């Protein structure tokens, strides 16, 4: 009997990332899927979330009754604060990033390559015309201890986003250690993709067919908990 295929929703991708965050880490969450992660962690994980706008120690997304428009995450979504939270200005916010305070930054991306490079700020390969949306990704990728990527495994037309080489201009030439997609959890280690977890009903061969570079299969390959 085969299990029905079950792709991860944005929320399940966030929850899968949340489970892998280690106790006591200082974590930056980028715009998009990553900002959902703070709503899926457990208090025992004792995590500190930081945001580009200088908020240190925020919790989950605020509901209507808790909402304060002056307390927002990197995606300008209202969040609540943990007791002990603090707020610094933008230059100090990136000072702590460049100082290497973050154990991990979780970012969205268009492409990731086996060397740990990734692309998330420009969707064109035309000559550079100063147009793009970098935000803080280049600062974060330069100095966070790890870069984790949350993205769909393929483009809308089915082309792979995990590649031998990025085709789009990179955000950083290295740094990605983990990619969580709608069908897989892939570690990026020593220039290789290692398949660690698969979505329900997706075989390693099926995931390989959706991937633009060789996938090593982890000896501990397991199904993503959903």
């Amino acid at each position, binding site marked *: 009997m085969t299990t029905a295929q079950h792709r991860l929703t944005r929320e399940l991708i966030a929850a899968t990332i949340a489970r892998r965050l280690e106790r006591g880490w200082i974590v930056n969450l980028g715009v998009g899927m990553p900002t959902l992660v703070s709503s899926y962690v457990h208090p025992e994980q004792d995590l500190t979330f930081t945001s580009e706008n200088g*908020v240190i120690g925020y919790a989950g997304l605020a509901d209507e009754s808790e909402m304060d*428009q*002056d307390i*927002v995450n990197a995606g300008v979504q*209202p969040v609540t604060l943990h007791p002990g939270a603090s707020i610094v200005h933008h*230059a100090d916010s990136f000072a702590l990033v460049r100082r290497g305070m973050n154990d991990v930054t979780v970012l969205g991306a268009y492409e990731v390559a086996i060397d740990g490079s990734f692309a998330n700020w420009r*969707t064109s390969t035309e000559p550079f015309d*100063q147009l793009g949306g970098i*935000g803080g990704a280049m600062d974060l990728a330069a100095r966070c201890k790890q870069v984790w990527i949350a993205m769909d495994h393929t483009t809308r037309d089915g082309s792979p986003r995990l590649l031998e080489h990025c085709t789009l201009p990179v955000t950083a030439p290295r740094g990605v250690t983990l990619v969580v997609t709608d069908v897989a959890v892939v570690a990026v280690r020593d220039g290789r993709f290692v398949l660690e977890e698969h979505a329900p009903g997706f075989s390693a061969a099926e995931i390989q067919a959706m991937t633009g570079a060789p996938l090593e299969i982890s000896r501990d390959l397991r199904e993503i908990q959903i």
Partner: protein
Amino acid sequence: MRQPIVCATMSEAVADIPDEITLLVPGFGPGLPFNLLTALYDQGASGLTTVSNGVGGAPATDGRKGLGEFVEAGRVKKVIAAFTAPTHPSRGSIVVDMVRAGTLEAELVPQGTLAERVRAGGAGIPAFYTPASVGTLLAEGKEHREFDGETYVMERAIFADYAFIRAWRADTAGNLVYRMAARNFNPVFAMGARHVIVEVEQPIVPSGEIPPDQVHTPGIYVERLVQIPPDGYFSSGRMPAATAEPRGSR
């Protein structure tokens, strides 16, 4: 002590701003000086070079103006920002259209580098080295240097003609306090320009009422202060100044 001028209206605060200035515009969601921007829009200044996180338009609901409206009106010469195009390529953008048409110049800067360039400008430091953007298109053509085995790129400071600042509280000495994450670029930009004009949410209090060790921006940087009127634009778009107590921290 040196006192800033307390202006009666937003239009008075921006009346003499000339064309062709460089203008710092803070804000990351909250903290955007919409009242001063709207007054400057009505005043007519053009040929602006703007420094900001993004180049978004204002919500179309209440008549306020954001940088997007200045760009659209052809009053901006150059934008320096961490977002010069929408993150979703499917979304259209006037900035993208105008840069491609050659009617607007853009300079894309990593967000931390942007904040640090203005901080350096306000700190009397002409340039600095950062690891951000090394190995990317943005570092091409810039001076690189190795320190302790790691490669860095040199970035130049920005010191502007004007900064528009959005504060929560101010005293008559010009000392400023920002509220929560509306702080963002505000204290940095308040130190990075020759002329600093501040819009304030809460009623301006006599000097001495803000404890000296709780001041975020010292008054010596501030040239003009102006109270946001009750019918002005507040950060939430719904909170009148008198009731804008922080609550998210409780």
